């Protein structure tokens, strides 16, 4: 039996009410989610002291969103699990919540968001949970529509748990084909326990320099 949740059931089934409750009561889960959200926010490299309009992809019960609102940002969260979203709503998070399958593409106007974060989500897109699911098409539709709804020069940072080098390649190449630049930042690469993968994507670049931004340094 695999212990990876994305192998046991589709996300909207796996993150049922019991699982959703874990994401608000288990202090270890909360603390890891918090740390990764702060790190993702740091990698977004937003202008200092400016409130931004941010997207949280796979916002779940709103733990990462709360980090965004603590830092003064206005956010919109997407998740496929209604149970998780209801927990977020009942906890009174400030963000707007949407029940959404990101593999179906995003429906926001061009240039809407100043940045996007995503914690432990994007590897789910590599699965085919239904016969109609083609992971390559779903990844491509997701990244293409994400690129469109980001402001020029905005970044998207994805913490994720790749299960193989082939899966990393599949996700990164789909993002690049959709127009993003950037790449992988691996924090604590030599520690099996602390090692974390962040995909840092740039949606074009703002400013006059004509230079692509440099990939942030790993920890």
């Amino acid at each position: 039996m695999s212990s990876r949740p994305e192998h046991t059931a589709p996300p909207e089934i796996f993150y049922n009410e019991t699982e959703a409750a874990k994401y608000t009561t288990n202090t270890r889960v909360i603390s890891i989610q918090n740390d990764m959200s702060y790190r993702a926010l740091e990698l977004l490299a937003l202008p200092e002291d400016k409130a931004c309009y941010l997207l949280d992809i796979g916002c779940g019960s709103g733990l990462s969103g709360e980090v965004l609102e603590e830092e003064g940002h206005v956010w919109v969260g997407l998740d496929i699990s209604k149970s998780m979203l209801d927990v977020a709503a009942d906890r009174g998070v400030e963000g707007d919540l949407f029940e959404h399958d990101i593999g179906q593409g995003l429906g926001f106007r061009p240039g809407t968001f100043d940045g996007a974060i995503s914690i432990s989500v994007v590897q789910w897109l590599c699965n085919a949970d239904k016969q109609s699911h083609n992971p390559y098409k779903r990844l491509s539709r997701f990244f293409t529509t994400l690129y469109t709804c980001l402001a020029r020069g905005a970044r998207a940072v994805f913490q994720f748990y790749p299960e193989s080098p082939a899966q990393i390649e599949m996700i990164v190449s789909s993002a690049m084909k959709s127009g993003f630049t950037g790449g992988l930042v691996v924090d604590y690469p030599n520690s099996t326990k602390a090692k974390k993968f962040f995909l840092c994507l740039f949606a074009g670049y703002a400013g006059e320099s004509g230079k692509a931004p440099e990939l942030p340094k790993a920890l």
Partner: protein
Amino acid sequence: MRLITHNMLQCHVKGCTTNNFPLQIQDAELETLEAEFNPGFVQRLIPKLHWGALYHTAVSLGIEDLPEQMPEEVTEDLLRAIHKVALETRVKEGKAVCLGCGHVYPISNGIPNMLLQDNEV
């Protein structure tokens, strides 16, 4: 869903490219949740707003705080009015309907359901 986010949202059904914005809010139950006023944020938001959509959506919901035309001069009163309408007004229950293809996105507990059928993707 706050009205700011409604102002950014368009129908994402496959092939629906005309008249897919703004989604028409119907049978709405609204709620007002106070939010901290950040004039800088609202100011930076203005270029992203579709003013006509914001104005007409607000009016359709019985909210008369905005001028029909976006004024040339941005005053603090205007920023406060936008803040109140776009960032403090939320749709709690109801539906968002696409006037292009007719798709209905139901809204419950403040959460719009954006899921599509396989043939709509």
